[in-house]
C-alpha cells in the first residue's frame, strides 16, 4: 500500500481526487489517501488516477518520491476532456435523412464552440454532459441531467453553425420549462444556478 498526503487548494479539484481514490480520510486539513497497490512498481503520482490537479501538491510519504507542484491537468481531467473531444469531433451521429430535409451538418466552428462550452462547464462546475448530439436546427445539442429523489432537471445547450448559443433548463418531472437564455460568450452562471436550484 502507498500512503499519500495531499495539501493545497481544496476546491472541487480535491473532490475529484477523493472520488477517484479507493479510500481517503481527513487529517489536519489534509486529505490522506490510501491507494491499492498497482500492478507495476512505481511511486510516480502521475500514474495514479486524478492525483495531480491545478496547484495541488502531491506529497508522497514513505519512500520520499517526488513532490509535484503547479501541474495543470490530471489523468482524470484529461480523460474527461478527451472524451468530449471524441464525442464532438469524431463520434457525432448525423442521420442521413436529415440532409434530404435540408438540415445542415454541424460545421467546425459549431464543434469547436461545443467543445469550449463542455470544457468550461466541466472546469467551472464539474459537470459532464450526458448527451452530445447533432441538432436538426443546424448545430450541436448538449444535455446535462440532474436527478434527485425530489426533482429531475435537464440543462440543454445548443450551439449553432452561425455560433449563436442558447440554453434551456427544464423540470422534466413536471414537464415545464424553468429557464431560457441566449448566451453570449461562455457565461452560463444563471443557467447553472437554475439547473441546480432545489425545488421547495
Amino acid at each position, binding site marked *: 500500500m502507498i500512503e499519500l498526503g495531499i495539501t493545497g487548494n481544496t476546491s472541487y479539484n480535491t473532490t475529484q481526487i477523493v472520488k477517484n481514490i479507493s479510500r481517503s480520510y481527513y487529517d489536519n486539513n489534509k486529505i490522506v489517501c490510501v491507494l491499492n497497490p498497482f500492478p507495476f512498481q512505481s511511486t510516480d503520482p502521475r500514474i495514479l488516477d486524478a492525483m495531480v490537479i491545478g496547484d495541488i501538491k502531491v506529497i508522497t510519504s514513505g519512500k520520499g518520491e517526488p513532490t509535484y507542484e503547479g501541474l495543470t491537468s490530471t489523468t482524470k481531467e484529461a480523460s474527461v476532456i478527451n472524451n468530449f473531444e471524441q464525442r464532438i469531433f469524431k463520434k457525432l451521429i448525423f*442521420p442521413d435523412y436529415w440532409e434530404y430535409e435540408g438540415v445542415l451538418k454541424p460545421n467546425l466552428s459549431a464543434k469547436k464552440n461545443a467543445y469550449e462550452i463542455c470544457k468550461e462547464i466541466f472546469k467551472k462546475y464539474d459537470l459532464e454532459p450526458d448527451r452530445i448530439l447533432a441538432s436538426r436546427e443546424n448545430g450541436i445539442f448538449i444535455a446535462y441531467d440532474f436527478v434527485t429523489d425530489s426533482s429531475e432537471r435537464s440543462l440543454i445547450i445548443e450551439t449553432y453553425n452561425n455560433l449563436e*448559443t442558447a440554453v434551456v433548463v427544464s423540470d422534466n418531472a413536471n414537464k415545464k420549462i424553468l429557464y431560457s437564455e441566449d448566451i453570449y460568450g461562455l457565461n452560463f452562471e444563471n443557467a447553472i444556478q437554475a439547473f441546480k436550484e432545489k425545488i421547495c
Partner: protein
Amino acid sequence: MPFKLLKKKFAKCNTLARLLRYKFAPTDFEPLERLYRGFRKIDLPDQWGALRANSFSFPNISCNWNRFSKPLDIRKRAGGLPTDGCYSFTVEQARYDGMVNTCHDPTPINDRKNYAHTELRQLMIGEDFSFEPPKDRPKLEKEKQGWSRSKRLAYRQYISLNLRSEIDPLA
C-alpha cells in the same frame, strides 16, 4: 345558401369534409386533439431511449391530424418508410407560448394526397391563434419580430417532454 357556408355545414361530418376536401381553419382544432409525426430509430440518442429536442425543428413542421388519420398512416406519408415510428402531442401543446399555430393543409390529390396533413407555422409576436400564417413563411429571426434562439429551443424541449410515443420505429 352560399356554397362556402354549405361546405362549412357539411364539414361537421368528417366523411363529407374529406370528400369535399374542406380546409379547416386554425380555430377548428380542439385543444386536446393530437398531431402525429414520424420518426426513425436513428433519431433516438444512441438509438435508444426517448426522443430529445435535438430531433425537432422549429417551426414549419408537418404532422397528421388525428381527426382524419391514425398513427400508422404516418408510414404512408411522402418520404415515410414502413419501419417509421410515430409520436404525438396535443394541439394545445403545439401552441405552447403562442409561438406556433396549427394550420390544416390537405396536400393536393394529384400530389400524394393526405387530407390529414397539418403544418405547424410560426406566429409572430402579436398574432393570435385565429390567424393562419402563410405557407412557407420563412424562419423569422429575432430582429424581425420572431423568436429568440432560446425561446425556440424551449419550445422544442417542451414538445419533447410532452410527446407520447404511439408506435416504436422498427429501423
